[in-house]
């Protein structure tokens, strides 16, 4: 299931929901991304996140499908927030249930890495000094491309 939303999420409740994925699940990997105080700029007080409604959901659904072809994925959950977020708030949640940890870790990391370079979201850093649209990082592109090998 994929949710794009302005409101916060309860990662504990999400984890509990992931546990209900059948007796074949032996591993759950989750990732949560938070608003950090520095990025392209310093003293970041928050972020503004914009997305392309419709395309975002389609791209993420495609990533979950690809993960399910490559690894054992029994259930997957992706939540991404948009709008204005304050320091330390939760931005993104990815959770994957698999039979074994290797598949859970890999599928979770793949979805997250691929989301960063292919899902149409854009972050703007907000600080006392002003606003700054975040630039795509070569390191993020390299991480995304590494999954193609």
């Amino acid at each position, binding site marked *: 299931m994929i949710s794009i939303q302005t409101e916060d999420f309860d990662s504990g409740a999400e984890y509990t929901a992931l546990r209900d994925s059948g007796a074949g699940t032996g591993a759950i990997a989750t990732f949560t991304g938070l608003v950090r105080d520095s990025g392209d700029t310093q003293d970041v007080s928050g972020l503004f996140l914009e997305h392309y409604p*419709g395309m975002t959901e*389609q791209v993420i659904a495609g990533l979950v499908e690809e993960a399910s072809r490559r690894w054992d994925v029994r259930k997957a959950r992706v939540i991404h927030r948009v709008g204005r977020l304050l320091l330390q708030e939760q931005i993104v949640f990815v959770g994957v249930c698999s039979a074994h940890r290797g598949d859970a870790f890999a599928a979770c990391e793949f979805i997250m890495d691929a*989301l*960063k370079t292919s*899902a*149409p*979201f*854009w972050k*703007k850093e907000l600080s006392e000094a002003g606003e700054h649209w975040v630039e*795509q990082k070569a390191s993020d592109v390299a991480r995304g491309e590494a999954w193609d090998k």
Partner: protein
Amino acid sequence: MTDQTLTVRFFARLREELDTGELTLPADKAQTAGDLLASLASRGGPWAQLQGSQPVMIAINQAMAKPATPVKAGDEVAFFPPVTGG
């Protein structure tokens, strides 16, 4: 309605700098997404950046596309900076 137009959408930095979220253009002006970019860039001012040094990503009907991808009436064409979510 018979729609002989294209919808063009802009996001993030491009949306702000062009002060435009959405445009409707006649579909017969462009064969490809690249034609559309060139035509918009020729408006000058901030529009010139559509063919500038910074990469511009293209989506047609919400799927990633290339400058050579054909466009037709009724399409939704989006231009945006490289994505930075997560």
